């Protein structure tokens, strides 16, 4: 599943159309078209459908990113695709670099993906078995949309229960964290290469800009702490707003000044 978008570009009608389409297909599988349904025989196709959906919705950003589909790293494809699958990574992130470290990380990522796929498979099989068991052999195919929804609600309950039973486990949590950390490490590699490239053109690197930014921030803090010195430009009354009373300003200045001696100077963060 690909989410239709996010933020200001999110289109609920597209998300609805995709979900309704899947619901429609599921109802066809359940015999809503009039065909006789042998529920037990549906366990395998149902599990297969759910597993595919899990792979697409929860893991697709990994593959998309690996294919370079998430320009700049974080893409809208991640919106419903799971936090851990949304980090920028993959060959696109290390294009042309052929660094051993990056390749090592990519290999590790593929291993982790395989482990994740194993979890999706287990969840899907458990969900389908649970659904068939709860349905009972006497159930008839849905004849109205309302009946179809009842069946669907039962399916969702079974699927979410199976999902929760796995994703709460410690091994699953560790795997997800490792996926996130590995993808973050890949992004860090990508940044490192970009820094080298920028430096070779004689342009300021991100680390250098970071260092300047940190110095500027520190200077602002020191100036604010001096009291009579020019104010830091950051906190300003909004245009047209009533200026705060003097007492409030003194308090604010005191607060701003207080951390100056305590706060450590920040160097570039890598």
């Amino acid at each position: 599943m690909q989410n239709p978008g996010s933020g200001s570009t999110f289109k609920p009608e597209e998300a609805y159309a995709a979900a309704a389409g899947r619901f429609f297909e599921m109802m066809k599988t359940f015999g809503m078209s009039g065909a006789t349904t042998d529920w037990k025989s549906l366990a395998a196709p149902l599990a297969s459908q759910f597993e595919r959906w899990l792979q697409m919705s929860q893991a697709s950003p990994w593959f998309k990113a690996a294919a370079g589909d998430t320009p700049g790293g974080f893409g809208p494809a991640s919106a419903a695709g799971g936090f851990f699958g949304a980090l920028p990574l993959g060959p696109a992130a290390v294009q042309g670099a052929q660094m051993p470290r990056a390749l090592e990380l990519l290999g590790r990522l593929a291993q982790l993906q395989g482990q994740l796929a194993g979890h999706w498979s287990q969840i899907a099989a458990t969900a389908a078995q649970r659904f068939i068991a709860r349905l009972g052999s006497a159930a008839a195919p849905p004849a109205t949309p309302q009946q179809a929804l009842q069946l669907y609600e039962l399916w969702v309950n079974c699927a979410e229960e199976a999902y929760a039973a796995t994703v709460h486990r410690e091994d699953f949590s560790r795997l997800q964290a490792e996926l996130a950390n590995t993808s973050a490490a890949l992004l860090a590699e990508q940044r490192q290469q970009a820094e080298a490239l920028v430096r070779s053109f004689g342009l300021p690197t991100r680390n250098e800009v970071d260092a300047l930014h940190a110095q500027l921030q520190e200077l602002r803090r020191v100036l604010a702490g001096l009291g009579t010195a020019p104010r830091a430009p950051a906190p300003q009354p909004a245009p047209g707003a009533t200026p705060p009373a003097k007492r409030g300003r003194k308090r604010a200045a005191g607060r701003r000044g207080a951390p100056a001696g305590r706060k450590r100077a920040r160097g570039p963060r890598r």
Partner: protein
Amino acid sequence: MNDAGAAPGAALAELTLQISATLARLRSAAGVTVGCSLKERVWSCGKTTLYRYAPLAPPAGSPPVLICFALVNRPYVLDLQPDRSLVRRLLEAGLDVYLIDWGDPEESDRHLDLEDYLERHLGGCVGHVRAQCGGTPLDLLGVCQGGVLSLCYTALHPQAVGRLITLTTPVDFHTSGNLLSKWVRGIDTALLERCGNVPGELLNGLFLALMPLRLTQQKYVRLLTSQPDQRALEDFVRMEKWIFDSPPQNAAALAQFVRWFYQENRLVRDTLTIGGRRVRLADIRQPLLNLYASEDHIVPASASSALGEHVGSRDYTGCAIATGHIGMYVSRAAGGEVPGRIISWLAERS
């Protein structure tokens, strides 16, 4: 379950028609707007903006209420539409309401940390509001992650806050049902910080992955058979817009939040230090109202209710509302109960 004599395929045909009809109505609702109450921008600091709402009733004579929302979502959910607006209910009760909007941080803001947010941004807002009311302590209403910031701020600046209200606020991050906490416990926060600001979509993906079928599929399918009227559909679209409208997160502040709260659970372990100063829940002695959702999948009720065991306040009220996390802000039931409890709790202490 089958109707005897139903024509084969007739049900599928009916379903197809319903899908198309609902889709057309959803498209017609796509232009809905969010936010409903008149407000004025009164102060700003970096990307942070402080708003003051226009009054809707004669003043109740209470100190101003400053709402501190989470960094990870937009605060307009508290004033989504007239019949689903916590802000509006407070205004109708004669309260003077201010709201902090943290804005959209850019890459140049990625070094802003929690101390910056607490002291310069939240502290600046508090300073401005207090300056308008002669320096008296204000009432602070912290929501979700904003509740954590509010607790920290109150502990550090007890003289500035008269009464504290927390809504769906996590305090003990290691209770057993907290899936979010389990998932991020192994994240390398130093590495996360090095990668720069985190897009809002990524965090939203995390929240949706907690219950993926319910949160990304079932709600749409339910539209098919519930046949909501146009107004209900517009309500639905407003919520969807809000859910998928998440601001990016500053790298430093997010990394600190994950490490200090989700991983190290410093609030309840009494080991939190911000800007060189100990943040102790025991130092919060103000009257405190703690409202949380009993069916919250993001902040489990147990994570919020723990607050009562750790604060120093002798006037602590904890209350579970029968709804989910987002339902606390926008459900019709909570729309009456949550503001009602806040208003009466404040009135009882005036």
